[in-house]
């Protein structure tokens, strides 16, 4: 198969799926090796960005999804006549920040940082698909652990959790004059 044909097939697959499609699934469909497909994906993503396109491809943790170019948001929005704001409450963003920066975190830890109970906020985030249970802590009471989801990455325009600004960049703490 020619590279161009492969690219077209990938486009067709991503378009038809309407969702994230993993690199392994794409490779399987093409009966190619992931190692061969990955650079083609990068080229495809790149070319969409370079030539300016109405549809772009996003990479999220080894999966790919088509989306509209955010540059045309104001036009596409008119199609749905929806308002811009699909935002969460401040409490939800704080909780989400704590979970995003502390993978596998218990509710107790979240509550200790925020100083308020977090149960209902966590539930909201789970309902939105941004947070999921990731297991239980091997400690008394075996509390549930939480982590962010791929849907979080997608909705927050991140390719991977590593794309987040380091948490230290938000720190107010004095470093030098802190020695006791």
């Amino acid at each position, binding site marked *: 198969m020619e590279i161009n044909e492969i690219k077209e097939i990938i486009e067709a697959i991503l378009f*038809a799926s309407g969702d994230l499609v993993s690199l392994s699934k794409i490779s399987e469909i093409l009966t190619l090796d992931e190692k061969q497909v990955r650079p083609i994906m990068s080229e495809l993503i790149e070319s969409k960005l370079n030539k300016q396109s109405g549809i772009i491809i996003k990479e999220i943790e080894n999966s790919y999804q088509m989306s509209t170019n*955010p540059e045309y948001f104001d036009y596409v929005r008119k199609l749905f006549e929806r308002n811009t704001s699909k935002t969460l409450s401040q409490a939800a963003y704080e909780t989400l920040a704590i979970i995003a920066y502390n993978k596998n975190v218990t509710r107790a830890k979240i509550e200790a940082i*925020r100083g308020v109970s977090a149960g209902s906020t966590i539930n909201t985030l789970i309902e939105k698909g941004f947070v999921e249970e990731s297991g239980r802590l091997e400690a008394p009471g075996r509390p549930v652990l939480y982590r962010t989801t791929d849907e979080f990455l997608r909705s927050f325009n991140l390719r991977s959790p590593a794309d987040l600004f380091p948490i230290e960049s*938000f720190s107010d703490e004095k470093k030098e004059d802190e020695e006791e």
Partner: protein
Amino acid sequence: MNQPLIEEYKLRLENFEGPFDLLYHLIEKNEMDIYDIRIGDITDQYLEYLFDMQTLNLDIASDFLLMASTLLHIKSKMLLPVISDDEEDELDPREVLVRQLLEYKKYKKASFAIKELHEAGNRYFYGLPSSEDFGETKKVYEVSPLILKEMYKGIVSRNERKKNYKTRYMEKILRHDRFTVEKKIRVVIKTLLNNAKISFFEFFKKKEAEKLDVVVSFLSILELAKERKAKLNQNRIFSDIVVEKTDKLTESDLKEYIDIYK
């Protein structure tokens, strides 16, 4: 106290995400150094706040009360004379609180950044799974216009040949129950059994679809979802609903609905 004032207080309270948030606000308002909090002033102002809430008969969240007791505890500790001579041993009673405040502030800032990411992310629109048929239908679709023509020719000539022997058809009086839920459920079940997944929009695309039809169809989908025989997925508000059958949906459901509603 009059209502608007109460509302105003409520608003002020709800603006704080918790005791740390309120404390931070007070520290900044008083232009204090976070590493050297004037615990007396802060405690007084904090309690004043809680008293205001109380006079307004507002529920004071237990989290706020807990912090009040922590502040009072620190304050009392700082009032006590230092007994130990060993300065190294002497811990600032405010230290834990300061660390908590700094930690909270860090995440509060991060939450603003996350909110910005969300706003950026909201500018992307995603398509739904394609409603095109990728089954074995490819050949059918490609040749079908021709097939249709041949079929039509075939039927008509066939029909003309046996026209004379055909008995007349009785006109049936059409009953006006086209849109009853039970009937629609059966239509939905049948479609789901054949397709596993259907798009709500696609299903009711018919331009002249009567409102009643759409409403009844929506009800029947909800009914199936309630019985966990179908899963509903909607990517965003007002967007298409993808109806997916679950393992619980079987051929026998078709019968069941016929029997129940007979």
